[in-house]
C-alpha cells in the first residue's frame, strides 16, 4: 500500500477503495451538490433529459443545495424568469437546502456558515469557486451544469484523481498581509494555469496560524491558477470554526491528512516575509505586484469590498477599521457586500455598518453583484475599480474598456479614502 495525499484519501473513501492512484478515473459518491441562479436552469434542462422516458427523481433531496445569489434580488426580467424556473423546481422536488430571499447569501460563505460543509466530504458545485471549501479539509470542485445534473440523478461524479502540488508557506507575515496577498503571490509564482487539473495543498507554519477567513480566501482562489481543488488539513482552528457554526462538537477525523511519504508532483516553498500587500493588475490574477512598488498613482472610480473571496466578517472588520472616522474620496463609489445575512447582521450589531455609512460607503445586500459584472456597481468605459474579488478579466465588472485591480480589504478601504491605489504603512 502506497502513501497517499489527503485528496487521494478522500476520493478513495468515496469510491469504496483503500487507495486511488494519480490519473485513475473513478466514479465517486457525492455528499453535497451545489448550484446557483446562473447554473441551475441549465442543470434542470439536462436533468430532465436523463429521464426522458421515466419519472425524474433526485438522488437525495437533502444533499442538493440551491442558492439564488448571483443576479438576486432579480436584476432584470430575464433573470427573474430564470429564477422562477429554479424556485418551481426546488418546490417540486422538495429541495431541503434552497436559499432564496432574505435567507440567501453568497453561496461559498453561506454553505460553511450553515454547517453544510464537513471535512473529508466531497462537494461538487456548478460554480468554479466551489473549491473554497477545501479550507475545511473538504474535497470540493467546480463543474458545469451537465455534470451537476448527473450528480442530481445518480449522486455520483466521474473524476480523474489529480496530482498534487504542495505549497509550503513559511516566515513571518508582514503587516497588512492576509490570505488574499498570499494567494495572489502564489498565483503570480505558478501562473494562471500552473495548477491546471491538479490539487494545490496549502501547508506550513503560516497556514497553521492563519484565520479561517483568510484560509477560505486562499482556497477560493485555487481555481485562479487552474487547480481542481485547494485543500488545507483540518486542525484546531478548523474544528473550532465547525463547533461555532454547528453548535456541536465536531467529529475529529484523524486519518484526514497527507501521509508523510505521500508523492507530490511538485513542492514549492514560499517565504512570506518577502510578501507585501499585493495588487493584481488587469487583466489576469497572476499580474500581481507590491502595492508599495507602484511607480505612479493609479486613480480609481470604484471600490468593491465583498464577494465569495473577501466578504467574510473579518474582511468587513478590517475594512471598517481603516474607514472609521474617515471619508470615502469624493471621486470614488465605495460598495460594501456582506457575504451572508448572518455576516450582515453581525456587522450591524458591532457597528461596522454604521462606520461604513458614516464614511460614505454604499451598503448592499448579500449578492455576487458587480464581481462578475452582474448588477449593483457596473463600470463605464475607461473606469477603474479596486476590488476584493477574484477575477480581473477583460470586461469582468462592466465595459470591456474598464479595469479591475484585485487587493485585500485593507488596501481596498485605504484606496477608497485616497482615491488611488494605496496601502497604509
Amino acid at each position: 500500500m502506497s502513501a497517499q495525499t489527503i485528496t487521494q484519501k478522500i476520493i478513495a473513501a468515496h469510491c469504496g477503495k483503500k487507495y486511488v492512484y494519480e490519473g485513475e478515473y473513478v466514479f465517486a459518491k457525492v455528499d453535497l451538490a451545489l448550484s446557483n441562479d446562473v447554473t441551475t436552469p441549465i442543470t434542470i434542462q439536462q436533468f430532465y433529459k436523463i429521464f426522458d422516458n421515466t419519472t425524474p427523481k433526485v438522488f437525495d433531496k437533502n444533499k442538493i443545495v440551491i442558492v439564488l445569489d448571483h443576479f438576486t434580488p432579480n436584476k432584470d426580467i430575464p433573470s427573474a424568469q430564470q429564477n422562477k424556473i429554479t424556485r418551481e423546481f426546488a418546490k417540486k422536488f422538495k429541495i431541503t437546502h434552497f436559499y432564496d430571499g432574505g435567507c440567501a447569501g453568497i453561496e461559498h460563505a453561506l454553505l460553511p456558515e450553515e454547517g453544510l460543509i464537513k471535512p473529508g466530504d466531497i462537494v461538487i458545485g456548478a460554480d468554479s469557486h466551489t473549491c473554497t471549501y477545501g479550507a475545511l479539509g473538504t474535497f470540493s470542485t467546480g463543474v458545469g451544469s451537465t455534470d451537476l445534473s448527473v450528480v442530481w440523478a445518480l449522486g455520483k461524479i466521474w473524476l480523474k484523481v489529480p496530482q498534487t502540488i504542495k505549497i509550503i508557506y513559511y516566515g513571518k507575515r508582514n503587516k497588512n498581509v492576509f490570505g488574499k496577498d498570499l494567494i495572489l503571490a502564489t498565483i503570480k509564482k505558478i501562473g494562471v494555469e500552473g495548477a491546471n487539473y491538479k490539487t494545490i495543498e496549502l501547508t506550513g507554519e503560516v497556514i497553521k496560524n492563519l484565520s479561517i477567513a483568510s484560509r477560505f480566501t486562499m482556497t477560493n482562489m485555487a481555481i485562479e491558477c487552474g487547480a481542481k481543488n485547494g485543500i488545507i488539513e483540518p486542525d484546531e482552528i478548523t474544528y473550532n470554526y465547525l463547533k461555532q457554526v454547528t453548535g456541536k462538537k465536531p467529529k475529529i477525523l484523524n486519518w484526514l491528512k497527507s501521509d508523510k511519504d505521500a508523492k507530490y508532483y511538485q513542492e514549492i516553498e514560499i517565504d512570506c516575509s518577502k510578501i507585501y500587500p499585493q495588487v493584481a493588475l488587469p487583466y489576469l490574477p497572476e499580474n500581481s505586484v507590491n502595492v508599495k512598488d507602484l511607480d505612479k498613482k493609479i486613480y480609481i472610480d470604484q471600490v468593491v469590498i465583498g464577494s465569495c473571496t473577501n466578504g467574510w466578517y473579518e474582511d468587513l472588520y478590517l475594512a471598517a477599521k481603516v474607514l472609521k472616522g474617515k471619508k470615502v474620496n469624493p471621486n470614488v463609489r465605495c460598495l460594501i457586500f456582506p457575504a451572508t445575512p448572518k455576516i450582515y447582521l453581525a456587522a450591524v450589531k458591532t457597528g461596522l455598518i454604521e462606520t461604513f455609512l458614516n464614511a460614505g460607503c454604499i451598503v448592499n445586500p448579500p449578492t455576487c453583484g458587480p464581481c462578475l459584472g452582474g448588477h449593483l456597481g457596473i463600470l463605464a468605459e475607461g473606469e477603474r475599480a479596486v476590488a476584493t474579488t477574484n477575477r480581473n478579466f477583460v470586461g469582468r465588472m462592466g465595459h470591456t474598456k474598464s479595469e479591475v485591480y484585485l487587493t485585500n480589504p485593507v488596501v481596498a478601504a485605504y484606496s477608497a479614502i485616497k482615491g488611488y491605489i494605496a496601502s497604509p504603512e
Partner: protein
Amino acid sequence: MNIKGKIFKLSDNVDTDVIIPAKYLNTSDPKVLALHCLEPLLEQLGKKLEGYNIIVAGKNFGCGSSREHAPVAIKYAGVNCIIAESFARIFFRNAINIGLAVVELPNAKKNFDFDDIVEVDLAKGVVKNLTKKQEIKFLPFPEFLQKIILSGGLINFVKENIKE
C-alpha cells in the same frame, strides 16, 4: 469522426467572461447565447465568427467560470471543434459533456493561421492543415472519455448506464 473547416485564431487565456459576458447569463437559450459568443474579442479584432467552424487558440482556453453557457455559445455559433495548446479543466469537461470536440495540441498557435483550411480526424488523432499541406498528430482521448464521446455526451452515457 471528421471535422473540416476554416480556422478562427485566438490567443492565450481566452476566459469565459470574454466567451460569454455575464450580462448574457440571464438566459439559457443557446441561440441567444450564440449571438453574443466572443463578443468583446470580436469587437477588438473587428471580425465576425460567421463562416468559421474551427477555433485555434493558445494555452488555458476557457479559464475562469464554470458557466456551461460558454461551450454552448461556441457550439451554437457554428463552431464544432476547438484546437488549443491547453484547456482549463472545467471548460474541458463541459465541452466533452455537451459534445463539442476539443483537441489539445502543443504549438497550435505556431502551426495554424487565420483562414487555414484544416481537417480533424478525432478517432485517428490527426489534424491535416490543407492550406499549409502539413499533418500533425495528437494524443487521442483516454478510453474513459472516448466512451462518453461515443455515447454522444454525458447525458446519453448516463442513460445507457441507468438502463444497465
